[in-house]
């Protein structure tokens, strides 16, 4: 079944005609995603990759029903793009763009949450339901239809773990990138709850990293949940030096907050198996199912 998006989801791409937007929209369409239109101010009336372009989300919604929106516009324009999408009634907004100040992110995340809109990102590789729908940049060659949901704060590491999973015969129901920033629209807990309700998903893989308390928040939820599904985690950054940001804006240990030790302890206490190296993830899935 998958979560959030499937083959009938109608997708709008904001920033579709830019370099990144074009490159990735093409790949999304090639995979079978139902991209119905794009938005680039000033280019209304044009056709791009076979679909119509509009000046604004509102204009697009006069002609199309839209289930979700992918945002590829440059960082300075992201705030406006998200607000426009939320105001026009789109229920899922995926912000691929990185380099957005967390203050700005918190503003649009807060606003979207108040309106009941799900935001993924910013700085996310996106979402992928294999063979059905992709919004973002995840490499489809290493992600195949299966029974394990994947939720991750990273991009490339997510794909590597999916690759290890495939080698051991485990495919993915939906892969969700939360994004590498400290303030993101959806947390591990938010997405895990969706997987709990998905009949196709038998287990969930959590790819976490140093920084913040999202993994601890998930562990607390799993302990109390009546519908929990088996979960396996890998937390990157155990050997990271303290106090330094490692790549992702959100990957930093500050004082005692955000260490891998704290996350691993919380997750194990909740019954989640934690792999010490990424290639052990499939073995643990096998033990849990």
């Amino acid at each position, binding site marked *: 079944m998958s979560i959030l998006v499937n083959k009938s989801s109608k997708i709008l791409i904001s920033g579709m005609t830019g370099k990144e937007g074009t490159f990735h929209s093409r790949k999304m369409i090639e995979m079978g995603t139902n991209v119905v239109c794009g938005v680039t101010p000033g280019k209304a009336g044009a056709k791009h990759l076979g679909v119509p372009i509009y000046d604004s989300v509102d204009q697009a919604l006069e002609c199309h029903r839209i289930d979700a929106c992918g945002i590829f516009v440059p960082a300075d324009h992201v705030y406006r793009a998200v607000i426009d999408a939320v105001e026009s009634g789109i229920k899922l907004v995926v912000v691929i763009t990185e380099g957005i100040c967390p203050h700005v992110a918190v503003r649009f995340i807060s606003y979207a949450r108040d309106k009941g809109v799900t935001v993924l990102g910013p700085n996310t590789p996106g979402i992928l339901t294999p063979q059905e729908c992709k919004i973002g940049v995840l490499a489809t060659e290493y992600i195949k239809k299966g029974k394990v949901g994947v939720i991750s704060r990273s*991009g*490339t590491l997510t*794909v*590597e773990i999916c690759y290890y999973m495939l080698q051991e015969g485990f495919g993915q129901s939906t892969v969700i990138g939360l994004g*590498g920033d400290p303030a993101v629209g959806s947390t591990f807990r938010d997405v895990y709850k969706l997987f709990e309700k998905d009949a196709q998903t038998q287990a969930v893989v959590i790819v976490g990293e140093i920084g913040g308390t*999202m993994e601890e928040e998930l562990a607390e939820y799993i302990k109390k949940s009546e519908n929990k599904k088996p979960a396996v985690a890998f937390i990157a950054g155990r050997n990271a030096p303290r106090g*330094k940001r490692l790549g992702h804006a959100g990957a930093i240990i500050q004082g005692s907050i955000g260490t891998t030790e704290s996350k691993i302890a919380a997750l194990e206490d909740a019954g989640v198996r934690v792999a010490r190296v*990424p290639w052990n993830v499939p073995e643990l899935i096998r033990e849990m199912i």
Partner: protein
Amino acid sequence: IVFYNTFRRGKRGTLDPINAKAVLIMSEGGGVQIESTALASPESIIKYYIDINDNINEEHIRGSIDSFNCSRNISETILNIVVSLYSVFTEYECETAEINPLVITSDGDVVAADARISIYDEAAIKYPEYMKEEDIYTDLERTARRDGLGYVEMDGDIGVIGNGAGLNMATLDILTYFGGRPANFLEVSGRTYHKAQRAVELVLMKPGVKILFGNFFGCISRCDVIAQGLACAFKNGKINVPVVISMRGTGAAEGINTLRTAGLKEIFEDDIEAGRRVVHLLGEL
């Protein structure tokens, strides 16, 4: 002789990403132990969640400040300080804005004995006059930042380069698993995967680096482009240590070809075996 009142107060505003709100923390006992105080006696910490799209709620905060039992004048002064600090926090897009301790002297003066703010990188470029990097970054890290590369210096002798922050962190884990000690973290990806050549030069600038390990899994960042950068670095004769590369994913086949042509021998399509090889080779040096 001046007597200082024995009360010390700390105030701190931070962003709470899980709730997407700003957090105001106030406590009657301030000082550098505030984090452990928060763990040991959480009731002594007053915590407010503020919706960053709204204004700060002065009435609620006034109520909390009243619990400190100061005179009305001093309480009003403290309230004004909290509100002003919040404006600084939002206007400058701070990660944290802290006054700790806020001291009330026996003469009834309110003095910020120490204050600090930390501004997010994305906003900090607007305030070049406040960019103060010497305290936080090493020389190499500052050089890397100028080149737009995310480099973090560490203690070991294995130079590391790879694409993706998460994968890079996992690379540090792989090396440590086999008993190696990384010299650094450095990712080339997203906006920087064209900078592989410069990245290699940077990693090798650190004294004591005896071997270089590159771990690449091409997704958006293409292996063929990265390989070209690496090959340039080899051809320019800048590399005088053994090199081991693992390369998979988008563009890997072309990338591996490029590396072979440039004379590289230790090429893997598996980062576990590559990591093992790195530590083994280091042992033989």
